[in-house]
């Protein structure tokens, strides 16, 4: 059951934090951070049936802003996090204003188009973003609190930070979905016309959900540069958004925690299976297609699949 799985996760995370090596901790932090962004996408896809192909632009856009703040202003954890959240929300707002008039394929294409505009910006604004080469030389992260300052650049502290962020984001997302707005979002997926007849502005609802998801994706994006010490345009490209959807489907749509499972699975396959075979993409594709074909309710119904550990 879900509760048990989560209870299992905590000691696991604790063990990793105590005994994991630098490489494994960074890898775990990357899974948690990317997973958090994928989870925010689950709010849109799983609950609102809003399939966005521009979500990476929110995540990566925040990563760029965060990296730039750290490089040019030496910003610490809090300002970087706030700026990332603000960037994610702002980009989501713009994307939402353009895309929420539409559903299905139109929504997909419009989010893709807005996301690719962010990509074009990151790719061509060389003096600021480094263009195709990206940004490197990102300073170590530190937390400044009232004059005191703690370094957060070690793999262990980054892992703990990522775990904290993932947990917080997960709890926030759950409370969002349990709250009136989350229930209305689910209703808008099932019967948007009826919901409008109840007096709900469906567009506003979708916009709010996008901004919320953008905020979470932005918070995750803000931490990403410090784990990888690099930010590049691939991070905002639409193919990254598509990868996020693949991760989400692998883990289970509409479950929130499935996003972490799927992200972990994908990154593990990508990192380890690719050492053994050139055909790892074929295997990922096959797995993905099998899930779509044989677990069809997953797209419609939340909580359709509970992964037993």
């Amino acid at each position, binding site marked *: 059951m879900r509760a048990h799985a989560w209870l299992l996760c905590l000691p696991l995370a604790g063990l990793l934090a105590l005994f994991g090596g630098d490489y494994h901790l960074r890898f775990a932090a990357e899974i948690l951070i990317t997973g958090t962004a994928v989870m925010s996408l689950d709010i849109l*896809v799983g609950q609102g049936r809003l399939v966005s192909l521009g979500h990476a632009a929110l995540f990566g856009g925040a990563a760029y802003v965060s990296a730039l703040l750290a490089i040019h202003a030496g910003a610490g954890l809090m300002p970087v996090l706030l700026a990332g959240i603000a960037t994610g929300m702002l980009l989501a707002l713009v994307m939402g204003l353009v895309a929420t008039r*539409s559903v299905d*394929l*139109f929504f997909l294409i419009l989010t893709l*188009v807005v996301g690719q505009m962010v990509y074009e910006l990151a790719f061509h604004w060389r003096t600021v973003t480094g263009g195709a080469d990206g940004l490197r030389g990102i300073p170590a992260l530190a937390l400044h609190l009232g004059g005191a300052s703690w370094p957060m650049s070690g793999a262990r502290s980054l892992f703990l930070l990522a775990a904290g962020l993932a947990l917080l984001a997960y709890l926030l997302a759950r409370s969002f979905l349990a709250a009136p707005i989350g229930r209305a979002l689910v209703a808008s997926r099932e019967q948007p016309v009826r919901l409008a007849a109840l007096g709900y502005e469906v567009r506003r609802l979708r916009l709010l959900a996008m901004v919320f998801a953008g905020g979470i994706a932005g918070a995750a994006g803000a931490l990403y540069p410090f784990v990888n010490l690099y930010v590049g345009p691939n991070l905002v490209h639409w193919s990254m958004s598509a990868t996020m959807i693949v991760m989400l489907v692998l883990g289970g749509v509409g479950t929130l925690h499935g996003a972490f499972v799927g992200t972990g699975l994908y990154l593990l396959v990508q990192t380890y299976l690719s050492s053994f075979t050139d055909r790892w993409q074929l295997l990922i594709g096959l797995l993905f297609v099998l899930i779509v074909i044989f677990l069809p309710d997953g797209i419609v119904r939340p909580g359709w699949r509970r992964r037993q550990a």
Partner: protein
Amino acid sequence: MGFYLIQTLNAVAFSVLLMLCGLGLSLVLSLMNFVNLTHGASYLFGSYVAVVWLGSGAPWWLAVPAAFLAAALAGLLLDRFPFARFYGRNHLAQVLLTYGLSVMFADLMRLGFGAEIRSPALPDLLRGVVFVLGMPFPIYRLVLILAGGVLALVLWYLFDRTIWGAVVRASVADRRMVETLGLDTSRVFAVVMAIAAGLGGLSGALGVGMLSAYPGLDEEILLHALFVVVLGGLGTFRGTVAGAFILGFAMTFARVWLPEFAGFLTLLAIALLLVLRPDGLVAPRLRQV
């Protein structure tokens, strides 16, 4: 003067290529309300078939029909499994299924045809240029424009003006009704899917002389095709043609005048058009409620 005339011809040729890419996608969308993201793979498959065909020394003018047939056969197989069980489903399920398949096909084609860039050995007949007001314009592109125009007319006639098209549309609108008339709708769908995939292969064979073939081209083509079809209004025939020409001219002239911002400007144009016309340029006959 000659400069702008040729640039206009360039834009027309590119638009026709975009239209060719969009037609197959548009066909299944308008007639079957099915989003087929394996279309880019059909295109690339057709390109590879043409390259292999032309390299084998077989008669060059059969390369295009061969690519059509090969891709159509693949479409037919896909229709049997797994497409058929997704025809009635929502777009999201279709998008996920076909995207996953396209990832697999991309890798399979890399396995089969290699990762290298492949180009066809074009016959000399297609390699010349004509001079318009002193400026060169390739014969290959004239042939492309011509072929695209003829194909569009044939399809328009077939699906809009014959009983056959009416049957397909009726099968989508009310499947049970058509079946009581004694027609096998699943066979109708299979034929449409085969034709659409075949069109993907055919456009791949026609386009390969301009774009070559290599892993990753499938995704680029798919993206262009999606833009064209969505811009035109989900899968209406006239809309696809209009979408292709708007996108083709926008991309060509953005590169003439503001090449450094061409990518951004093209995206901006698409976004603006879709904000102004949320259902695309030509409102579709059928819509998912």
